[in-house]
């Protein structure tokens, strides 16, 4: 029974790994639930702000905001949202795989790129690449606060305002359901006009539509719009961060579940090998005794 002890130790170690992975699975499941709730909670704000912007588009103010104006793209800013920690399957790798063709195409076409990394994995990835990393923020934890993101967002927005960047693209994993997370690239600025076409859900539809009306602005249209659009962009980024966290937890849950299953299969196999070895040892022993007795 030479290998038996080794096999037993191996089984033990796989079992303890399995304990860890199944614990991580459960933790991820509960964290995913709270991340989903946070996603729900963040939704009203961006919905409301989108309504106001839709109003503004209809209200036709005299001031045209730079965030809404398309211009020739010479430099693109990417805000890349990744997870802080690994062990979440192919989540981040898929995102980078989606992003890289865009980056290399920009390089070929001579379009400059700036990158803002949100999340540790993105930072690690981009610090090995030849990209212009302009800002980053990591370790947001499971409950990100919008205040933590503002600095990095502002770097990008300032770039856009000062004409250094002509387009800002948001890259993140959209949470679709527990099994599916979709890596996405969305144009953040200039704000796509589709956004502005969304209808207003308020109770005051109809009566104001007939004639052109405008808000009373306080202090003035320009300042109010400035603040509004900035908040809108920030809320979109925040939404995506929360979405990405939900995706991360879901991906981790699935990854850990399959790890636990694999451990189970491994234990089964090892148990079989162990039993066979044990059986073989007993058989040899018996044969030895029997043949010994026969020889006497």
């Amino acid at each position, binding site marked *: 029974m030479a290998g038996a002890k080794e096999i037993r130790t191996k089984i033990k170690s796989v079992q303890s790994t399995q304990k860890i992975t199944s614990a991580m699975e459960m933790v991820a499941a509960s964290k995913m639930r709270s991340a989903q709730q946070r996603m729900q909670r*963040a939704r009203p704000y961006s919905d409301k702000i989108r309504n106001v912007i839709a109003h503004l588009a209809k209200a036709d103010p005299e001031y045209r905001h730079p965030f809404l104006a398309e211009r020739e793209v010479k430099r693109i800013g990417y805000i890349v949202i990744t997870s802080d920690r690994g062990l979440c399957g192919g989540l981040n790798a898929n995102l980078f795989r989606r992003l890289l063709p865009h*980056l290399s195409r920009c*390089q070929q076409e001579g379009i400059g790129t700036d990158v803002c990394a949100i999340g540790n994995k993105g930072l690690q990835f981009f610090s*090995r690449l030849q990209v212009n*990393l302009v800002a980053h923020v990591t370790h947001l934890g499971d409950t990100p606060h919008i205040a933590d993101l503002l600095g990095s967002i502002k770097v990008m927005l300032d770039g856009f305002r000062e004409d250094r960047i002509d387009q800002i693209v948001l890259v993140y994993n959209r949470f679709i359901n527990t099994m599916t997370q979709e890596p996405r690239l969305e144009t953040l600025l200039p704000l796509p006009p589709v956004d502005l076409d969304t209808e207003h859900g308020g109770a005051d539809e109809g009566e104001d539509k007939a004639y052109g009306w405008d808000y009373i602005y*306080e202090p003035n249209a320009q300042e109010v719009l400035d603040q509004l659009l900035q908040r809108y962009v920030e809320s979109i980024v925040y939404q995506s961060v929360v979405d990405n966290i939900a995706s991360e937890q879901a991906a981790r849950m699935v990854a850990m579940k399959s790890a636990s299953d694999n451990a189970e299969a491994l234990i089964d196999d090892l148990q079989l090998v162990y039993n066979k070895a044990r059986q073989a040892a007993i058989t040899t022993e018996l044969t030895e005794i029997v043949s010994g007795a026969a020889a006497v």
Partner: protein
Amino acid sequence: MASTMHLDVVSAEEEIFSGEVEFVVARAFEGELGILPRHAPLLARLQPGEVRVRMPGGEEQFFYVSGGMIEVQPRVVTVLADTAARAKDLDEAAAQEAKKRAEEAIRNRTGEIDYARAQTELAAAAAQLRAIQSLRKKRGKK
């Protein structure tokens, strides 16, 4: 019965209040605003301060907002509250810090890896994942 309007108080992180109200007082950029139902459309910046609300029963409620916006439609009022204390210089400091961190990260950059190389690395990782998946499938069949 007095007329009412719908009030939503939302911040980027959560919905704070939603319901029918009779009267809203908020501190706008140029002073206090009192809003009754059927107010003309208005869009104003808010100063840090409280938003006072009178409910249909006459009961009053207060919310503290550290800035934000208020949108008024004849029957719908929306307060878009800022969660964090916001000031220009604070934002600026945060931006500076984010930039500085990025610069440090670039300085700490080890060897130079180009896109093609990164792509092959990622492809290798993906191939590994695929291999594991097909292995698992085979296993399942066995």
